[in-house]
């Protein structure tokens, strides 16, 4: 077992809307990422995955608020640090965050090298311009980015190149954790592939120790990360290795999500797509019982009354459902006509 | 819709502006109910009476008078002889007149005055005094003489033969009961024609709001119509409308305003005419901004869908575009009203405002105050309340506009 790079214990955060309503977007998320490993987080829009990405940084600003839970980066708890300390000591050094529109963050009037100088100086590292330039050139070459980019302005670069440049800049201090929130969704497929390849290079060359990758594109996640967590209504409903999750999901929601994958591969035309009825719950007042119960094809009355806990089965796989894994698999094998009773582990 | 209105009133800025504006509006509506007098009636003959309560002299003279035995502490003499004056007299009596200090009792005003009268003579040149001091003593003597006089005022009337006949003597000790005579309170004093500034101000605010509203409505109507047509139709219609709009934009609108105001002549320039003149010169920027909004809406999916449903151009404009920019138009109109009121003030200041002797406007009040040099002779009450009110109206309207802006464009918040 590798060294744990990022550990999150029962993290809860909320948003406060303009009308002073609380939205519990992350409601009890626990995860663990080891050195050299990557975790993918999948989910529909509005399930809280982007909020989770922001919350993992440990840097909270309105309208996002921290409620409870721990975030431990390489043995150091950051969730109880002062915001200013987090910004200066953790962000960039320990954790790097890349949002979807990261490429738009580049000021068009500055050369790329200026941003790198800025990052280095903002973290109090004393280096001359020459040293920074040499370091940046070396790093860019390692990541397959042309050296000329350093002397260019953001407007001269294509979207994919901009996004790769931003990733290279934000990992220039070799952070331990990279949190990427849909880093390639706004790009065309070719640029996406290049961004993904670069992220893999970052991992392989040890510039980042671990990665959290958030996207709604499941085939992409399957190819990028070691583990996949499926998120629904602010909670993880299932966690496992990428292969297990895509081909053998256990939770009914994960099953539905994986059944909606479409890839341009032979046999796809005959493939049966899963359709889930209904819409995700409003996170202002999440349902009392299982959050997926209103949409679950296998739900029974108990499901709407009792909230399931996250349970571990097999090595490291977790799921959140009242039914046992054995029972669920039985149900999937028989089709969805029969509605099974959940196991009465708790009466 | 209901939700939007609720949201609007959640905005602190809007609410604050709205309350100020409503207070002004309510005052304008309610005040005339209680004060029915003509706001432009000339109550006083003379310029710029200070704020305060005034009693009728004529009535005071003719009404029943009471002779009051005023205690001596309150007599005129006591009032003239303050501590310093007494010390001065004492010093004079000792140094110049040679009266023994023991004989002088400064607390006894009458004794002091009799000593003074016995020893002081205006024509004697006392030694040991500066000229200024001598003159001061002379003045003091006069004052004391006047204070000791007991005679009153004689009121005489001419009889049929033209001879004056004494009808009444008012003595110094005569007083009238304030309840027996008419009094008049001018909270903000009077203006140059002796008109009550407060009543006039309320009436002026009403007419200024009318002008602003009329100007705002006209400017918004023209601007909205042209903007909608230019934005939605595009092509040639857009080019023509934008050409005209640009023409109006490059010529300073105030110059056009002055020229039109001048050319319609004094007699035609009433409240409504000034409103119309301001309205038809201030639409260009509404047109430009409405046009740009419409252009961004024109290619929205719901407009395309409406087109594909075979709806006519006017139906699309009025049901698929206008409701979307309604909030924006309301905001633009609020600003137009505010700038209409300011434009009226500007026009009136240079003498091109409503030519009227029947109603006042805020601008006209400013102009009158300026022409009669209120700002030079310190009659602040003639112009300062007007300035405050113009600023308040403008401020409240702009505050409402900002509040609305924040509600309708939430990105601007924080």
């Amino acid at each position: 077992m590798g060294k744990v790079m990022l550990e999150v214990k029962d993290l809860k955060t909320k948003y406060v809307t303009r009308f002073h309503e609380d939205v519990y977007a992350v409601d009890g998320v626990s995860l663990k990422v080891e050195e050299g490993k990557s975790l993918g987080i999948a989910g529909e829009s509005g399930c809280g995955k982007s909020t989770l990405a922001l919350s993992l940084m440990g840097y909270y600003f309105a309208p996002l608020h921290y409620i409870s839970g721990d975030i431990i980066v390489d043995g150091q708890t950051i969730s109880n640090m002062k915001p200013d300390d987090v910004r200066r000591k953790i962000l960039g050094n320990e954790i790097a965050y890349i949002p979807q529109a990261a490429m738009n963050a580049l000021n068009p009037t500055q050369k790329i090298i200026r941003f790198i100088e800025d990052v280095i100086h903002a973290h109090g590292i004393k280096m001359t311009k020459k040293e920074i330039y040499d370091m940046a050139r070396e790093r860019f070459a390692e990541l397959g980015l042309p050296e000329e980019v350093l002397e260019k302005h953001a407007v001269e670069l294509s979207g994919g190149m901009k996004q790769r440049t931003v990733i290279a800049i934000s990992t220039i201090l070799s952070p331990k954790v990279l949190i990427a929130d849909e880093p390639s969704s706004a790009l065309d497929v070719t640029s996406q592939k290049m961004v993904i390849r670069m992220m893999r290079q970052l991992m392989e060359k040890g510039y980042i120790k671990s990665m959290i990758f958030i996207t709604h594109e499941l085939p992409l996640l399957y190819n990028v990360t070691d583990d996949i967590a499926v998120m629904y209504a602010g909670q993880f409903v299932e966690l496992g290795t990428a292969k297990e999750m895509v081909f053998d999901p256990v939770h009914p929601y994960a099953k539905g999500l994986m059944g909606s994958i479409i890839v341009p591969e032979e046999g796809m035309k005959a493939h049966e797509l899963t359709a889930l009825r209904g819409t995700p719950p409003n996170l202002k007042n999440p349902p009392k019982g299982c959050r997926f119960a209103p949409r679950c094809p296998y739900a029974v009355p108990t499901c709407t009354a009792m909230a399931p806990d996250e349970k571990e089965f097999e090595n490291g796989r977790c799921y959140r459902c009242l039914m046992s894994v054995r029972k669920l698999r039985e149900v999937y094998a028989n089709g969805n006509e029969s509605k099974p009773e959940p196991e009465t582990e708790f009466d | 819709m209901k939700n939007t209105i609720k949201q609007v009133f959640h905005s602190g800025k809007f609410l604050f502006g709205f309350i100020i504006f409503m207070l002004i509006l309510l005052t304008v509506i309610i005040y005339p109910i209680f004060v029915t007098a003509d706001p432009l009636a000339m109550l006083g003959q003379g310029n710029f009476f200070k704020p305060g309560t005034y009693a009728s002299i004529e009535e005071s003279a003719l009404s029943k008078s009471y002779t009051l035995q005023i205690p001596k502490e309150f007599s005129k003499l006591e009032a003239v002889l303050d501590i310093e004056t007494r010390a001065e007299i004492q010093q004079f009596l000792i140094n110049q007149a040679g009266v023994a200090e023991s004989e002088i009792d400064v607390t006894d005003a009458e004794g002091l005055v009799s000593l003074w009268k016995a020893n002081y003579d205006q024509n004697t040149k006392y030694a040991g005094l500066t000229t200024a001091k001598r003159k001061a003593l002379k003045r003091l003597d006069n004052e004391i003489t006047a204070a000791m006089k007991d005679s009153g005022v004689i009121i005489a009337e001419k009889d049929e033969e033209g001879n004056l006949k004494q009808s009444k003597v008012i003595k110094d000790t005569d007083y009238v009961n304030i309840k027996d005579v008419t009094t008049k309170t001018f909270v903000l004093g009077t203006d140059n024609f002796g008109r009550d500034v407060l009543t006039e101000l309320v009436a002026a605010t009403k007419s200024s709001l009318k002008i602003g509203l009329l100007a705002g409505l006209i400017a918004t109507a023209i601007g909205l119509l042209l903007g909608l047509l230019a934005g939605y139709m595009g092509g040639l219609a857009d080019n023509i409308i934008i050409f005209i709009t640009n023409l109006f934009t490059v010529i300073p609108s105030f110059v056009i305003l002055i020229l039109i105001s001048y050319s319609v002549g004094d007699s035609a320039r009433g409240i409504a005419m000034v409103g119309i003149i301001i309205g038809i010169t201030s639409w260009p920027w509404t047109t430009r901004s409405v046009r740009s909004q419409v252009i961004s809406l024109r290619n929205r999916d719901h407009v395309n869908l409406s087109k594909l449903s075979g709806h006519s151009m006017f139906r699309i404009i009025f049901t698929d575009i206008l409701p979307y920019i309604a909030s924006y138009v309301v905001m633009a109109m609020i600003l137009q009203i505010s700038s209409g009121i300011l434009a009226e003030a500007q026009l009136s200041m240079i003498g091109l405002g409503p030519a009227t002797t029947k109603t006042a406007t805020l601008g006209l009040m400013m102009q009158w105050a300026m022409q009669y040099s209120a700002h030079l002779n310190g009659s602040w009450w003639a112009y300062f309340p007007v300035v405050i009110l113009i600023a308040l109206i403008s401020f409240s309207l702009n505050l409402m506009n900002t509040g609305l802006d924040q509600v309708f464009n939430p990105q601007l918040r924080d």
Partner: protein
Amino acid sequence: MATNQNQSPKQNSTEPKPCLSGRGLTKVFGVGKVQTVAVDHVDFDFNEGEIISIVGESGSGKTTLSKMLLGLISTTEGTIEYQGKPRDISTNAKKKEYWKNIQPIFQDPFSSYNIFYKIDAVLDDCLNMRGFKNLPEEQKIQMKTEACSFVNLKYAELTNKYPFELSGGQMQRLMIARIFLLKPKILMADEPTSMIDACSRATILDMLLKLRDEINMTIIFITHDIGLAYYISDKVYIMEHGKFVESGSAEDVIINPQADYTKRLISDVPKIYEKWDLDTVAN
């Protein structure tokens, strides 16, 4: 569960009839020196009852092409033939007539509705367009109920609601109900599933297939997702820089691509069953 029941176009006894064709269709934006050719001399024949996908990356001109076919923007060059005859939309009346035969579903359900109209008004509008304005009220309600149940919505619950009170998936389904009421010959679906969640996507696709089967509709499906195009369509047109680089049956184009661009596009999409080769990326 959605099932793709129709693997191939309906085998009619007769030859496939072209429903919409284009000859040398071109659209140039801008004037003088700053011109952009959005669509560059494309030819096509879309047959009746087929689902045709136009696949292209952003900026390839697929949306411009769809707007030209809808008659929302003018063509610079070339002709569009509708049912074998050149399309004539020179007057408003002719445009109205043409629009009875072609209707769209747009990408963003949230901007497709006038937020000031209730759902009932949206559906009534469709009935008016088909000339059912003076039908008795019960009959109208029956038609609207039928359309809503076609897309698994309950009409009775919707009458007094505004579209924005629905979820994205429901709004898109309502759009399909609208199409069901209008019964056009051609449906122009411009990325109808790209803004909605994966779990609701299957429902929408299922309904599009059902529409085609029930009213023999030609569906032009515009998408950037090559997997989706493969899943739903009979024929696929691959578009690059305003030109069709490859076209043919879905199987042929996706499984055995010939054009370099198609090959690259397919190889760059992440795969599940095959290995997704990250190293063969063009720099």
